[in-house]
């Protein structure tokens, strides 16, 4: 039976659980997902500064830890941590292998970078405007699907490195390859997409991002295990984890993850199909074992979604805290002073009372806090403007309410992301073998 493990659910995920999975999971494949929407735009900028950079900053560390055991246990690795530079990542992996006296082959899958293929006339999905309204564009990457990964899987590569690929496709591709599924058998492809969707956030299905003491207790979170799926030829799968790890896999964790970042569960659109999760059946078949079956799907869309990163300005931010019985009143006074000082120049200024109303933009119920932290933020055109936000917060030390403490200020570049669509025939996927 095919066994696929999920070794990272985001760019900076913990490394130990992936190591344990490779050592003890008897896996066929390990998948490392690490490419959030903005990550690739940031990577593209790094690549512009240094052409050998632009892949995941933790990739080297992950490879040093995982490569010897991947090769020893004969586990193939698939990762999108090539980000803006899968080729650079592959060369680095080969270099690390040589240093460690190991031999491995790496396949790169490129073609997701469509910056040279789109133009200002492309329509922006979110706003209905044109891409030219979002200048300067930094990156444009199409979400590739399983058909782009299959040629690499047919090679002898131990490791497959990609840039932007739809997250579930990273898991679905090895299933399709292993069992020789027909790409147009959308019932199977839909079920396989659900397996990928459930695994793609790693610890989010094993009890990570789930615990709520007294309501949803999770044992051993400090040693949270990552999931793997045991997949049958007909697509039914059992999601489980290693016995000696912390966390839990139960109906509740699987349901939360099944709906995570999903809109219409009957129409979950990927490059491979339009999956239907509403027909899925879940069953607890043992401790930390949930069997998943019954998802289905329809024909894939004719276009690829393209994620476009653009320079949106600079975020200026400042924070300061107040404590004690009148913390709220002094926090509100600070908020009022900052608005009077800054709103003229920054009409979109956002002010928050952390501990009171910053997360839900108000309160549901009425709670009086012991501490309040005032935060102001604005999106600015230049670094200099952005600096004035934090500067005004810091100045509250001697120009604001009594006993403010812990002022902090920060400026960072803001990369906005919008989506557009590109016809499939405009994409050329390249598979290359290194090492």
């Amino acid at each position, binding site marked *: 039976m095919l066994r696929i493990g999920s070794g990272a659910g985001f760019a900076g995920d913990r490394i130990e659980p992936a190591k344990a999975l490779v050592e003890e999971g008897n896996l066929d494949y390990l998948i490392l997902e690490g490419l959030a929407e903005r990550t690739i735009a940031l990577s593209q900028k790094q690549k512009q500064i240094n052409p050998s950079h632009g892949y995941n900053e933790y990739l080297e560390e992950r490879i040093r830890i995982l490569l010897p055991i991947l090769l020893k246990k004969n586990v193939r690795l698939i990762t999108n941590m090539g980000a803006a530079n899968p080729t650079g990542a592959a060369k680095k992996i080969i270099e690390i292998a040589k240093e460690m006296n190991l031999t491995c082959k790496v396949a790169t899958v490129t073609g997701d970078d469509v910056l040279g293929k789109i133009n200002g006339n492309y329509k922006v999905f979110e706003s209905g405007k044109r891409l030219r309204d979002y200048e300067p564009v930094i990156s444009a990457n199409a979400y590739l699907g399983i058909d782009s990964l299959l040629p690499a899987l047919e090679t002898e590569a131990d490791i497959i490195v990609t840039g932007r690929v739809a997250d579930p496709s990273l898991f679905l591709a090895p299933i399709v390859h292993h069992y020789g599924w027909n790409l147009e058998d959308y019932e199977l492809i839909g079920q396989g997409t659900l397996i990928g969707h459930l695994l793609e956030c790693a610890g989010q299905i094993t009890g990570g991002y789930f615990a709520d003491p007294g309501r949803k207790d999770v044992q051993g979170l400090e040693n949270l295990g990552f999931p793997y799926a045991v997949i049958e030829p007909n697509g039914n799968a059992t999601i489980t984890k290693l016995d000696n790890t912390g966390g839990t896999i139960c109906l509740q964790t699987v349901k939360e993850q099944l*709906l995570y970042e999903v809109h219409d*569960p009957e129409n979950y659109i990927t490059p491979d199909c339009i999956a239907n*999760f509403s*027909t899925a059946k879940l069953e607890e078949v043992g401790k930390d074992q949930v069997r998943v079956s019954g998802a289905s799907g329809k024909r894939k869309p004719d276009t690829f979604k393209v994620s476009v990163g653009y320079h949106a300005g600079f975020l200026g931010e400042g924070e300061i805290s107040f404590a004690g019985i009148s913390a709220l009143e002094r926090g509100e006074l600070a908020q009022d002073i900052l608005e009077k000082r800054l709103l003229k120049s920054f009409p979109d200024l*956002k002010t928050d009372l952390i501990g009171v109303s910053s997360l*839900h933009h108000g309160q549901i119920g009425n709670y009086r806090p012991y501490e309040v932290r005032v*935060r102001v933020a604005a999106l600015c055109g230049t670094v200099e403007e952005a600096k004035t936000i934090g500067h005004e917060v810091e100045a509250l030390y001697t120009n604001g309410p009594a006993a403010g403490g812990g002022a902090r200020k920060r400026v960072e570049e*803001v990369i906005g*992301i919008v989506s557009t669509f590109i016809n499939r025939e405009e994409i050329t996927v390249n598979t290359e073998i290194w090492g």
Partner: protein
Amino acid sequence: MEKIKLIDIAHSRSGDKGNTLNISLIPYKEDDYEWLSSSVTAEKVKDHLKHIVKGKVTRYELPNIKAFNFVCEESLMGGVTTSLAIDTHGKSLSNALLEMEIERGK
């Protein structure tokens, strides 16, 4: 009728796509799914989250797994990448839904 909060009988996770937020609602006891479907409507959720949700709320039902999915448009101050909110993803908003008070059904 006994008043309860959703957090007493259900759990939830929220996620983002652009400026759209989705919040799941999953009863701990699958038997509670039926009466929840009449008491936690899209309209009630929109009203409960009026400080947060500026657009339309659509409720999707998953009777197979006994769960609901509320999709809330224009709810993330522009979306994760350019939002000035402290929780740009709206990850904490599942707890805003779970604070909702309802009358316990059968």
